[in-house]
């Protein structure tokens, strides 16, 4: 236990819970390599951000590490072939996502040779940092703690802000999950090399590696690795085991005492947070030229041989379950992630993705269905447990009553959905589900307002156009009448003034008509301009009135609006838009909640993305 003596001060956050760890089951055996599966199914969306652009066709032969889809837009990540073989399909398939909706996937039929492309290691110590970060766009590396935010963006952010401290998230606070623990025990050297690369790329002065004190082996092994490098600016900080210490903002507070303001990214206060597995991927990429192809997955719960496996992305779940000795009889379904924040997999055939840190075979014995919810008795145990110092009991009332304005006032969007409140609730109220519901409703309302604004704007333009066209028509009418009048007057003159020569008469008509035309043009232009200006004024006034009314409905502050706008942009980009089902009005609240979950989950991931330092290594 000497390795656990802590020399740095720990700054505890309020709240937190101590769920049973259940980690020892999957740490009895070392990390095992999973043999090649019979097929690889790679969802295009394994990260937060835009769907990458497919660069291959069905039938193409691909090599291990070959780029299959390239990052598109600012926030996106590339997808690579995780083994050599042939592209057998590009189609929609069920992906590991709580929505249960199918999404575009590339299927590879492995040829069994596992043949690599030509690897291009980079000399990261001497190469230009900018170029190195730019090349990361091709690496497919995303935050492997579960947030799956593209890593090159997190390194880019530094260009403006100047990160002075890098925090390595190795807290791994969720029960059951041991992938980071085992990785640190077995590959601490590589991790530390990866940390050095991240530190170099960020230009960070120091590095703090936060590990919960329930992982003494990992902490010891990391300490040895750190001291072997002679990098004095790197330090292992053992933090007390308390869920959710692995949440990035909580971990930053634990090791530095810094509260990242709710509306700021960590980089804005000179901090960046990376998960241990992510920095290891950085090391593999720069040192060996290997893109992100695999990760460690804890396969645990109701299986015969719980263990951690190095799994190629796209490996179908049954292959992993079989490697862990198969699921025991009472297994009901599989959970991805931990028991506090994980979700039910929509199918037991889904592929393993970059976000899959843990798969738990669930059974009634492990996770008994909760008893029926009782009314809230306002005991405020949830408030005591909340690591964000929210008042979950108030948020619950507001969410239940669809009082979204109040929910916003009580900082609903600061909720990290860690589940600590539900965990301690004597009334068994599914609090987090209420919050997910309220968040998604608020986002939907805001979206509806934006759509209404847009429609109103369009309508105003349409009305202005109609008015303008009307004026133009009237003007043309007047023109024609004027021209006819002039012509007839001239004809009269022509008929009575026989002394005028025909040549001068022609000129006269021409000049008169021309002058009349010119004068009319001036008047017309002025009238038209006045009419358009008036129409625009009216449109502006109408919009101002509407804008004022809108504010009274939901008074979201600017940051949330901005966040929602970003989320919307991305949602549209990934084609999620069409999947939003407005809950039926006559449906019960539970049904509404269920319908909202898909949106909420996406919203949550996106919201974290917007903060750019999402929870790594829960």
């Amino acid at each position, binding site marked *: 236990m000497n390795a656990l003596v802590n020399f740095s001060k720990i700054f505890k956050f309020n709240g937190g819970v101590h769920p049973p760890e259940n980690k020892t089951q999957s740490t009895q055996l070392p990390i095992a390599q999973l043999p090649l599966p019979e097929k690889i199914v790679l969802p295009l969306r394994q990260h937060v951000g835009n769907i990458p652009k497919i660069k291959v066709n069905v039938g193409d032969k691909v090599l291990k590490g070959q780029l299959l889809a390239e990052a598109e837009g600012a926030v996106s990540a590339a997808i690579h072939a995780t083994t050599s073989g042939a592209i057998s399909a590009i189609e929609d398939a069920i992906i590991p996502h709580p929505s249960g909706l199918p999404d575009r996937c590339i299927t590879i039929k492995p040829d069994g040779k596992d043949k690599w492309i030509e690897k291009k290691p980079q000399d990261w110590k001497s190469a230009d940092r900018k170029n190195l970060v730019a090349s990361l766009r091709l690496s497919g590396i995303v935050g492997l703690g579960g947030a799956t935010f593209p890593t090159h963006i997190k390194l880019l952010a530094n260009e403006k802000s100047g990160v002075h401290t890098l925090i390595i998230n190795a807290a791994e606070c969720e029960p059951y999950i041991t992938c980071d623990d085992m990785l640190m025990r077995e590959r601490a050297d590589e991790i530390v090399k990866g940390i050095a690369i991240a530190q170099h790329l960020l230009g960070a002065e120091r590095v703090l590696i936060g590990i919960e004190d329930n992982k003494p082996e990992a902490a010891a092994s990391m300490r040895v690795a750190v001291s072997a490098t002679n990098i004095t600016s790197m330090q292992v900080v053992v933090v007390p085991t308390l869920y959710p210490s692995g949440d990035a903002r909580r971990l930053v507070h634990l090791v530095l005492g810094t509260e990242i*303001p709710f509306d700021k990214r960590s980089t804005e206060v000179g901090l960046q947070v990376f998960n241990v597995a992510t920095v290891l991927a950085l090391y593999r990429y720069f040192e060996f030229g290997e893109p992100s192809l695999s990760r460690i997955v804890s396969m645990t719960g109701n299986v015969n041989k719980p263990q951690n496996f190095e799994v190629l992305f796209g490996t179908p779940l049954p292959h992993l379950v079989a490697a862990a000795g198969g699921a025991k009889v009472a297994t009901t379904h599989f959970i991805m992630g931990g028991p506090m924040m994980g979700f*039910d997999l929509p199918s037991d055939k889904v592929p393993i993705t970059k976000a899959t840190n843990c798969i738990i075979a669930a059974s009634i014995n492990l996770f008994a269905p909760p008893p029926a919810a009782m009314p809230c008795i306002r*005991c405020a145990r949830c408030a005591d447990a909340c690591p964000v110092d929210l008042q979950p009991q108030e948020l619950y009332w507001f969410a239940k009553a669809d009082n979204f304005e109040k929910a916003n006032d009580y900082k609903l969007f600061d909720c990290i959905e860690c589940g600590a409140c539900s965990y301690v609730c004597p009334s068994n109220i599914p609090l987090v589900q209420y919050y997910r519901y309220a968040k998604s409703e608020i986002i939907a309302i805001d979206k509806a307002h934006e759509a209404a604004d847009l429609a109103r704007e369009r309508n105003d333009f349409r009305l202005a156009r109609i008015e303008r066209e009307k004026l133009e028509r009237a003007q043309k009418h007047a023109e024609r009448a004027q021209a006819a009048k002039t012509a007839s007057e001239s004809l009269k003159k022509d008929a009575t003034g026989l002394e005028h020569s025909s040549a001068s008469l022609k000129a006269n008509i021409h000049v008169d008509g021309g002058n009349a035309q010119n004068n009319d043009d001036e008047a017309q232009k002025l009238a038209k301009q006045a009419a358009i200006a008036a129409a625009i004024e009216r449109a502006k006034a109408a919009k101002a009135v509407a804008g004022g009314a809108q504010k009274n409905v939901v008074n979201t502050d600017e940051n949330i609006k901005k966040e929602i706008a970003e989320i919307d942009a991305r949602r549209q980009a990934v084609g999620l838009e069409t999947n939003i089902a407005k809950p039926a009005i006559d449906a019960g609240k539970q049904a509404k909640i269920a319908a909202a979950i898909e949106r909420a989950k996406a919203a949550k991931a996106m919201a974290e993305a917007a903060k750019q330092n999402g929870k790594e290594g829960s």
Partner: protein
Amino acid sequence: MNRSPYISDAPSVSTMMLKVLLALVPGIIAYIWVFGGGILVTLALATATALAAEAVMLKLRKRPVQPFLTDYSAVITAWLLALAIPPLAPWWLIVVGTLFAIVVAKQLYGGLGYNPFNPAMIGYAVLLISFPAIMTKWPAALQLAQTQLSFADQLHYIFSGLLPQSVQIDAVTSATPLDYLKTQLTLKHDAASIMQAPIFGALGAKGGEYVTIAYLLGGLYLWQQKIIGWHLPTAFLAVLALISGVFWLADSAHFASPIFHLFGGASILCAFFIITDPVSGPTTPKGKLWFAAGVAIITYLIRVYGGYPDGVAFAVIFMNICVPLIDAHTQPRVFGHEK
């Protein structure tokens, strides 16, 4: 589908309520020792009335009966009311009080979790206003009574209002210390000499103080079990001690000592069992301090200047009204936000 967390570790509402009942047991034992077994009859009547009223109301409101009967919250209301009213009161008194507490103060407001007022205190206040004579007529502690009533006698008296032929009513009742102090002070007696009367004990009321100490033990058990927090009891007792201490130090001839205020009347029961009702109380830590302080101040003012000997019930009801206001203005700072 996302329905995490899949695990929980919380005592159920039933468990929490049962622990509260358990914490009252030492007080009840002391009560029996001091005032006789009649309280058991009152407790039984109150419990039966509360459960029956709750069941009928749940049926009428088309709510499931079983889960709400077994949350035991109605039993707590019943017990608190039974312990608060005079022990030898006629049987219908506790029945009427419990009915009002459960039917009006609790179920008509929506049942468990929705009642803005502490049901037991509403029941008590209704009885005190409606039947002031009975509600202020306490039996003397057994050690002080000229004639001791047997359990059978008490039972008989509760149901028929008749005492054994040889016993006069004055022989078994006495003024409560708070009541006695108040009336004697209006007669311009000195507080110190008033408190020489035999009904005063070392801390509060003779006999009654043992019950109070037993309540204190039960309350500490609840705190140790994390059923209640420290904020409410500490703030209540501290503020009550402070305000009574200031008055006492300024003019000890007319004001009783802080010790008497803490251990006399219903102070301890209030601190650990009444203001700790989560449903009708505030939820924020700061709010709990304000709430308890408010109850302490109002209790003291009613005791000293009001028309009733003890002021706990009215103080609690008044502060219940203030709870939404208190909660709204005592929101803790959220992580990452400016104050």
